[in-house]
């Protein structure tokens, strides 16, 4: 579990830091709904990622069928949570829907960017 927590901490810290800085920048240049939406989406993206990690040990050691059913239940529960910022963005004018959607994918973006950069650096290192 310690490895999972460290992984979550690594990606969540990066995602929220970038979201806050980008959000503040948007707020400063008078695009408040975009900035607020980005931060809101990222917060829920992090919550989804943390819940996913907490539910992982519960999926281990079960039959394939039970794991599938548990995965499906876990997905619906977490998607219900992810729906909250989108409903807020649609109902309230102070949040921009597109920036909320972008924020929801922030953790995934940072996971991919981290590994892609590692891959590119190692490929470059081999060439040198």
């Amino acid at each position: 579990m310690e490895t999972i927590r460290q992984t979550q901490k690594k990606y969540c810290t990066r995602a929220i830091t970038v979201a806050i800085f980008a959000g503040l920048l948007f707020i400063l240049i008078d695009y408040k709904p975009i900035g607020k939406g980005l931060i809101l989406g990222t917060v829920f993206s992090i919550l989804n990622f943390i819940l996913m990690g907490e539910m992982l040990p519960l999926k281990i050691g079960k039959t394939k069928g039970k794991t599938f059913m548990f995965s499906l239940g876990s997905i619906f529960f977490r998607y219900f949570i992810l729906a909250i910022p989108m409903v807020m963005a649609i109902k309230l004018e102070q949040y921009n829907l597109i920036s909320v959607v972008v924020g929801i994918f922030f953790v995934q973006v940072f996971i991919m960017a981290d590994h892609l950069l590692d891959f590119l650096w190692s490929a470059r290192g081999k060439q040198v």
Partner: protein
Amino acid sequence: MSYDVKTWVDVAAFVGAGLSMGLGAIGAGIGEGLTAARATLAISRNPEASGEIFKTMLVGQAIAETAGIFGLVIAMMLLFVKNPNPSFIMVAVFIGAGLCMGFGAIGSGVGGGFPAGEACTGIARQPAMTKRLNTTMLIGSSICQTPAIFALVTALILLFSDFSALPLCPTWAAVLGAGFACGIAAIGPGIGDGLVAGACCESVARQPSSATIATTTMLLGMAVTETTAIYGLLVSFILMFKTFPATDAIAPAMALLGAGLCMGIGAIGPGIGEGLTAYSAVGQVGKNQKNSAELVRVMLVGQAVSESTGIYSLVIALVLIFVV
């Protein structure tokens, strides 16, 4: 009992949202289940690597469920975005968008589970290759999401384009056909891509020295596997952007609906088949690096033959659109 236009549009939005999220969750559920099942076996094989296996499982599942989140986004838009000028064409548009995203998320969700599961097994077998396996898995899983991204783009175009000026018949069939063409066509390539990416993770774990050639073959194999999803996207774009003359006859409308179904269903088999071909090639390239060029050639020929039925579907879909 009679209903006004607005009621029908609301009903279509609810049905579309249900299809988008319900179908979208199937793929992500199967993909996550596959990953967890392989992780269980991996931990049982090498309990000391459980920390790294859990980490890989978490990261792999986060990427594999991206397609499901696309389904959620479209469902929320269908449910809550206001429609100021409801018209009957929007009934078909909303159901088409829901079908497109729902079907489109199945393949990528399932496909994303294969590399994540194989990476977990690989870490148990070869803990020293953890970093490389994670990178290979993430590259593979990300490419697996491409067919779902096609479906997302089509669903968003359907939702935000103004079809109200077009004649109801046969436009209703064209937009529904567009949803079927892109959504169903994404299933096969999504699963096929996952098979290829899974084989690459397995190959890297079994033969660490083959990592570069296996990754290159994987990228090539996945690129070809995805072509039938591109045919689906092409047919759906033609159906959405071509203006069809107004008609009261049902046959032209059915031809457009048939074109969408033909391309969508016709892409499932080639997508999975091409994935199976590349799955085998990527696995063998790892074991037999000396003959990798020959193996890649055979893979490409095999994929080309497997693709022919997808091309037939494309031709028939185009005939239905432009000739019939």
